[in-house]
């Protein structure tokens, strides 16, 4: 399941002017998604973590914060817009996309009443073949005509806004520098892939050789939680954000309760599995 949250930028931050914190708000949305909801920060809290009290922020600063939490993001500087779109449409990725707001000014997606045309960041959480599900940090519904939360935006409009990103004070746009169809984006790691398929998994280490035991964990990438030398379990299988498979223990092979229920382990040379 996709972990999604909307984070507004105008949150009364006293550390630094919240008008500068769109990228921090988008970063908070990225961190929530990439951690499956474990990291829940405001835009102001992200801003504090940058340690930067001057002007706006960029994608590298959010990437550094993500790395500090052990989250591996991918920075596109630039990337092909259709490729980023394809990854988001797959349902396993979200991304911060930098845009030029001039393209959105006075459209239905304008969150600033036509008063803003600069560089901005939005978080794209999902998408269909036609539309992106984008969270504009200004979409807090503060006025009757201000969008509230995630909006559905045509991909071609978002692509034009990405191409219209101003790169400098001289007005150079992303499309001027790299051509059309490019994007500056920070991509989440892939969401864990979870399947309802059940597996019969046999752990077959040597009880006299601890090095052959299988390590158990409290969660995927969680704390270590004991080891097992020999066992057969009914399990579910899932893929973590780094793309590694894990088994989650449901029961003993005969369906009885096990003390290791809901613990996780990774495939290894002492593990054999078959679908059931």
């Amino acid at each position, binding site marked *: 399941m996709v972990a999604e949250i909307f984070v507004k930028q105008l949150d009364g931050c006293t550390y630094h002017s919240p008008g*500068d914190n769109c990228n921090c708000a988008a970063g908070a949305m990225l961190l929530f998604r990439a951690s499956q909801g474990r990291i829940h920060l405001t835009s102001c809290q992200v801003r504090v973590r940058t340690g930067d009290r001057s002007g*706006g922020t960029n994608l590298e600063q959010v990437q550094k914060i993500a790395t500090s939490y052990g989250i591996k993001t991918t920075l596109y500087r630039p990337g092909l817009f259709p490729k980023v779109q394809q990854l988001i449409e797959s349902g396993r990725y979200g991304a911060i996309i930098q845009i030029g707001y001039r393209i959105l000014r006075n459209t239905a997606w304008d*969150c*600033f009443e036509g008063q803003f045309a600069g560089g901005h960041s939005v978080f794209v959480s999902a998408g269909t073949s036609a539309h992106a599900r984008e969270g504009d940090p200004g979409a807090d519904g503060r006025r009757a005509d201000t969008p509230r939360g995630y909006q559905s935006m045509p991909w071609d409009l978002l692509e034009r806004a990405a191409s219209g990103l101003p790169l400098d004070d001289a007005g150079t746009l992303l499309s001027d520098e790299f051509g059309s169809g490019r994007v500056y984006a920070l991509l989440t790691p892939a969401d864990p892939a979870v399947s309802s398929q059940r597996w019969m998994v046999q752990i077959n280490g040597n009880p006299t050789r601890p090095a052959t035991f299988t390590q158990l964990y409290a969660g995927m990438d969680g704390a270590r939680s004991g080891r097992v*030398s020999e066992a*057969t379990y009914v399990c579910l299988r899932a893929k973590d954000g780094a793309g590694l498979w894990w088994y989650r223990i449901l029961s003993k092979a005969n369906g009885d309760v096990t003390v290791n229920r809901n613990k996780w382990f990774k495939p290894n040379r002492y593990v054999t599995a078959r679908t059931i």
Partner: protein
Amino acid sequence: MSQGHVERGHADDPDAPEQPYEDNAPDEVPEPGLPQSDKETPKTDPVPED
């Protein structure tokens, strides 16, 4: 394969290394596929705060 459950040897040796397993290879990281700029991405501009 026996369906009877065997579960023993719950050793508590957290320092022992796990065995490497080549079949559990991670997903490929989606690379940009384009030459990358040597400049950082631009900092965003201030929006009106009403």
